[in-house]
């Protein structure tokens, strides 16, 4: 595993481990509720009700990083779930079905008080319904109408003019569903939802994302990137899962400060940086060493992924008079912003230019099909902008068909051409 250059990265990992241990203790010893949710859910509602949240994608990444995905996914297939089904969103379910706490990361997921997901793709309702049945917990879905108005340069509207950016009927509908979800959370916790608390939390999220924006700007401006991409991911996502909390804000600030110190001291993540790379798609969680494999020979450094970059543009919302509606605007269009034309391709090209990207690697996860759409538009837009693209056909969590050596050789050939 690649060295951790930042103290923040070490602290983030330690905090996550301790946080999860505390969650398990609270669930087992104090019968406190917690929730398992999709990553694109309004986590803020759960936090405002003191219901800790485990993100499906975070847990899948954990399982994959522990090299357990082949074992769990083979088990799922053996039960009759065929091997063409999506893996990223089902790996955590597979770990629950396997039900072996001794093998599972950090003792495994305890029984949640509820599971919840936005119904974006057609399979996620099935994954979560199956999972909820396995746990014997309720599943609360939020349905997801499609976007039909997509104004250009969404990231220039999303902070202040979010009510114009997203169709009002979609926001109204999401808010109506939020009220239903809140009623469920109130029943589970016995507490009453407090909109003032949600507003304060949303303001905290803004603060946190502003720190991340400063980091992003420093990466753009510094002669060489001060922080490797996979360390960006670790720091950002540890905070995003707890966004708006005191720890998350403090961590974002500390991360910003550490990166700032490195920039001021002229410290680069890779002193021999010659090529700046962009990683488009979810993280390659089973082989994160891949991200540093091209530094020594080619001076090729991954400087951009969506994880840091999306924080400021996707999450900041100013004008919190109606925090539920602002939260709805944060929630309704993740899929369009990150995956689908025109929003994803337009934003990624803009980010590539700002980050002085020399080449892009685009993950094509054929084992997680909904995440693979929009890629041809993204690849073409990057190429039109003069940025060479290498598609990487691989799954983000499933290492079963991954040949790390072969893929590194392919990338090396690509970099030689770049």
């Amino acid at each position, binding site marked *: 595993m690649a060295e951790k250059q930042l103290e923040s990265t070490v602290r983030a990992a330690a905090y996550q481990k301790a946080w999860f241990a505390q969650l398990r203790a609270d669930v087992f010893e104090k019968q406190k509720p917690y929730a398992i949710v999709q990553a694109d859910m309004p986590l803020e509602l759960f936090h405002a009700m003191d219901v800790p949240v485990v993100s499906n994608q975070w847990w899948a990444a954990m399982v994959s990083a522990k090299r357990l995905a082949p074992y769990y996914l083979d088990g799922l297939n053996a039960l009759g*779930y065929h091997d063409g089904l999506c893996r990223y969103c089902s790996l955590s379910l597979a770990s629950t079905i396997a039900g072996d706490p001794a093998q599972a990361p950090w003792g495994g997921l305890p029984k949640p008080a509820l599971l919840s997901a936005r119904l974006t793709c057609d399979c996620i309702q099935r994954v979560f319904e199956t999972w909820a049945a396995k746990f014997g917990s309720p599943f609360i879905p939020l349905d997801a109408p499609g976007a039909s108005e997509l104004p250009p340069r969404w990231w220039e509207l999303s902070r202040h003019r979010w009510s114009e950016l997203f169709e009002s*009927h979609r926001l109204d509908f999401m808010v109506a*569903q939020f009220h239903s979800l809140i009623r469920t959370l109130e029943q589970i916790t016995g507490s009453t939802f407090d909109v003032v608390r949600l507003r304060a939390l949303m303001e905290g999220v803004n603060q946190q994302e502003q720190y991340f924006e400063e980091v992003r700007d420093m990466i753009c401006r510094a002669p060489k990137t001060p922080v490797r991409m996979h360390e960006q991911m670790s720091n950002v996502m540890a905070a995003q899962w707890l966004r708006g909390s005191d720890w998350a804000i403090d961590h974002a600030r500390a991360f910003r400060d550490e990166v700032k110190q490195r920039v001021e001291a002229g410290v680069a993540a890779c002193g021999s940086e010659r090529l700046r790379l962009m990683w488009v798609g979810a993280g390659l969680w089973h082989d994160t060493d891949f991200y540093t494999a091209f530094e020594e020979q080619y001076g090729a450094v991954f400087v951009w992924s969506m994880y840091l970059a999306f924080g400021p543009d996707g999450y900041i919302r100013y004008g919190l008079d109606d925090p539920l509606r602002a939260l709805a605007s944060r929630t309704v269009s993740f899929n369009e912003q990150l995956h689908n034309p025109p929003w994803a391709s337009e934003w990624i090209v803009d980010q590539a230019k700002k980050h002085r990207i020399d080449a892009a690697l685009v993950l094509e996860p054929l084992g997680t099909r909904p995440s693979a759409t929009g890629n041809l538009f993204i690849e073409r837009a990057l190429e039109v902008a003069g940025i060479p693209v290498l598609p990487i056909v691989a799954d983000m969590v499933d290492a079963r068909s991954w040949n790390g050596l072969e893929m590194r050789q392919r990338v090396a050939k690509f970099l030689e051409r770049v």
Partner: protein
Amino acid sequence: MGSTLKKIYTERAIKPPGSLPLVGVTSNTVPWELLQAAGFQPVLLSPRRDRTPIADRYMEDVFSARMKAIFDFLLSPESACLSAVVIPRTSEQEHKLYLYLREVMREGKERSPQPILYNLLHAHSPEAEAYGLERTRDLKMQLERLTGRQIEPEALSAAIAEGNAARQALRGLLELREGPAPRLTGSEALALIGAWYFMDRAEYAPLSQEARKEIQTRPPLKGPRILIKGSSQDTSDFCAAIEVHGAIVVAEDDWWGSRAAGQDIDTTLDPIRAIFEKYYFDAPSPRVFPSDIADAWFLRKASEVDGVIFYLPHEDDVIGWDYPRLRDFLDERRIPHVMLRTASSDEIGAFISRIQHG
């Protein structure tokens, strides 16, 4: 028998039949009655294409062959006869089809009929129901803007009556697949049923009734009665692959087959509400939630057949999640079943033989 209907199903011709402008639809969940009342001739897009060179430039391999064929057709000169295409939020791929169409038009690289998104949701909740009704009203307004004239209540009532008459005729055909002695093969049924998506429903009803009368006089068919569950059957090829082994496909959990008609639209309600309720409560979609509602038809039908074939070809990434649950249901009731990823004649033959020989 029903040769006209079979020809229409096979040819899937998309050309102006007369004075009415054509509007394409991509699924069973676009309200035919609204389009008809607006003065359009609705036609389902399901072109047969061996190659999809235009679509391949934009659509990743994760899209189904049918969705690629629709996209390819819409970007080809053949689609010039369409005034618009209405795409429902009935599957994730359809929403992406809508976004892709908009984008290639925005880029100015391709031409396509105007895409209209019908944001019908399928999760059963008070919020989704209220939203769907509102979006149905919005679709009506969009169609009115397209034609420049209001949809009159009389036109809506007439379209509902016409659609219901075709549904009744269609259910008449489906009766010939019921019971211990069906008279209609699955291969033939898919053609006779599927034609109604590609033609005027006022014409469909009498042709369907005529076909029914002829088929009724046939002797009953013999062979194990099979229910198909899985990816949509937009051709009769898979049915034929089963029936060549002496079995009879008597039902498909599929909008192309047994579930094409469903119940009539309620004529006692406000027409827009009635139309919405039909497509929200009584139209199959991969997004119907929760599963006990989505599964209800299958669970009932499975107890009326001799065996179930799950067909989950390699492009499936949805129904495969349902398979273990439904398989367990069948096992509990000792209903024979098999799951196939390809139309393997050997596997089908072995399964049919297993049913025949107990």
